[in-house]
């Protein structure tokens, strides 16, 4: 892996696959002669995340980025592949206590703060749950202390603990989710579109809070988003996903200034132009194909302007390039050069 040897690999994902069986029931299949249908949501990805960095996954809906998030925290078992967390294989057989100790160190923040908080629980109990579950409080006073401390950390007050989630706005609810995620003193946070349901000014508050917390608590983030501008702002490195595969991984600045994979370039073209440079967004033809029957070879070839015969039959391998990797035959063969992009430095 590029520049990986020197880094302390905190989270290591290898050959991760997750297939979902979405076939009709057996009887229907038999009577109507229908085949099984398998969605290849995640189809073999490798990611290494160093301690203290923010690794982002971007892609359009249905590319499997949320599935990766759920696989990493263990909400789904993988179909194949391995996830190593700080040197421990998450699938390895070990006692419940060992497993709990590992689980404590990773937490998740979900997209919709209206759905991820139990409406019948008071905020205090929501934040206290991980502390109770992992037995991290000595007594009641300690528990109250810890919950108050977590709420203060996300700029709420301990008095807010007596309220119910419906008494808070969307942004405040997301703060509660973050407080809950921090309650077990995790080292690794998986954030699945944490700001997508929020208004922009509130999104800025939450992003600032996340950056601030990361610095103070030395957190490592796996950040999932479809918003490239947000990803640019928050990430150390970025992985671009398309139909369950990683097509390009690169340090943030490299990805945005020297994009390589044609799909990455296409995604960058779709960022709305707020600087009013008059640049026209190139409307890309076509849509993401169904992951049930993904195209052969490179799954991007039907939409790719640089595709040739080889792209239709052979799946490209991830090749190291400029501190990242890219899976593209056109780049490998040198048919496609690296593109330099610059952005107007807007004086905000």
């Amino acid at each position, binding site marked *: 892996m590029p520049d990986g040897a020197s880094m302390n690999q905190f989270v290591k994902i290898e050959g991760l696959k997750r297939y979902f069986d979405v076939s009709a029931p057996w009887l229907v299949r038999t009577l109507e002669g229908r085949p099984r249908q398998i969605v290849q949501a995640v189809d073999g990805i490798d990611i290494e995340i160093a301690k203290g960095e923010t690794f982002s996954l971007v892609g359009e809906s249905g590319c499997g980025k949320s599935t990766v998030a759920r696989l990493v925290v263990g909400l789904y078992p993988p179909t194949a592949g391995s996830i190593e967390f700080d040197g421990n294989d998450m699938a390895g057989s070990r006692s419940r206590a060992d497993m709990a100790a590992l689980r404590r160190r990773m937490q998740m923040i979900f997209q919709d703060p209206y759905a991820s908080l139990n409406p019948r629980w008071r905020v205090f109990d929501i934040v206290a749950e991980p502390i109770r579950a992992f037995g991290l409080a000595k007594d009641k006073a300690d528990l109250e202390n810890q919950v108050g401390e977590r709420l203060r950390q996300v700029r709420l007050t301990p008095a807010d603990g007596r309220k119910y989630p419906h008494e808070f706005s969307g942004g405040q609810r997301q703060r509660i989710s973050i407080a809950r995620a921090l309650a077990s003193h995790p080292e690794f946070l998986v954030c699945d579109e944490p700001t997508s349901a929020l208004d922009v000014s509130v999104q800025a508050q939450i992003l600032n809070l996340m950056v601030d917390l990361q610095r103070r608590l030395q957190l490592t983030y796996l950040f999932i988003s479809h918003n490239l501008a947000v990803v640019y702002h928050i990430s150390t490195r970025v992985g671009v996903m398309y139909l369950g595969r990683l097509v390009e991984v690169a340090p943030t600045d490299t990805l945005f200034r020297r994009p390589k994979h044609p799909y990455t370039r296409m995604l960058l073209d*779709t960022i709305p132009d*707020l600087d009013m440079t008059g640049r026209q967004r190139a409307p890309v033809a076509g849509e993401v194909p169904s992951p049930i029957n993904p195209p052969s070879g490179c799954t991007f070839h039907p939409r790719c302007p640089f595709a040739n015969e080889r792209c239709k039959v052979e799946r490209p391998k991830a090749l190291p390039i400029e501190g990242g990797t890219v899976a593209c035959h056109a780049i490998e063969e040198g048919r496609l050069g690296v593109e330099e992009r610059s952005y107007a430095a807007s004086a905000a």
Partner: protein
Amino acid sequence: MASPSNNPPLLEVKNLRVEFPTRRGTLLAVDDVSFDIAPGEVLGVVGESGAGKSLTGNAIIGLLEPPGRIAGGEVKLEGRRIDNLPYEEMRKIRGHRIGAIFQDPLTSLNPLYSIGRQLVETIQTHLPLSASQARKRALDLLKEVGIPGAENRIDHYPHQFSGGMRQRVVIALALCAGPRLIVADEPTTALDVSIQAQIIALLKKLCREHQTAVMLVTHDMGVIAETADRVAVMYAGRIAEIGPVRDVVKQAKHPYTKGLMGSIPSLGVRHDKLTQIDGAMPRLTEIPTGCAFNPRCTFRGSRCLSERPDLMSAGASRAACWLHDRGGVGAPIPSDGAKELVDA
């Protein structure tokens, strides 16, 4: 460009008020909103959730959900008042003179009918065409909005289309009778970014070719920057700033617009911190006296607490802020919420 064009505006909205009577008193959701749209012009209406932008759109097309009601002001389409028309008459205008596009294309289409049938039904409701003529028009519309293989697709059902294609069908449906005005409420929000660009390009093209005016309601400043000629920024039921899109985006005059623009991550420079506006938009029950934005504003003065600013001219735009009045904001008062409004 400022657009005091010579041709009369297509849509005129004057002092529009929308209120919701509730048990705990009447909520004013849209308060004294005035603007107009010229033929062929795209007016963007932006704001955060609860700012009243969708309600303004719904009030114009006569689709306010009860108990919401227009409590004052007037809406004129091509010089004719439409806000006080009986339901049936409004129904004829809606679909004929005004087309509507909503956020979720799946809920705007009837899942039980093929899209062809839905198009033909709408066309025949508003235009005196025979069934075969209507079907031909439906086919032309589908081709115009860029649905490949329209001849085959016309008999398909909504579930057989992808999200982007469905939104194209909805646009075709809105265009059925050749409307003069299209009210598009978050037309791209439910779509992926790459599809979003396609739909925006399509809307712009149609607007140009047919000289249709578009009122584009969205929370996405990026979409506005690319599409709109002018933009109105709404806050707590009122217009905070309105002006040519370039001026509003690049040289915002209202502190709220400024904060809003700064809070959008930009690709140019990587700031350590995004500008943030502390606090949240007030609930309708708790709109502060004076300027509704004052508790979150870093520039506020004594006058902002007591007197409500109306839109006043500020450069090429108009902003509802005392900063642009000769009298100024009065004695400065630090804002409640802002502990640190970091301008990186």
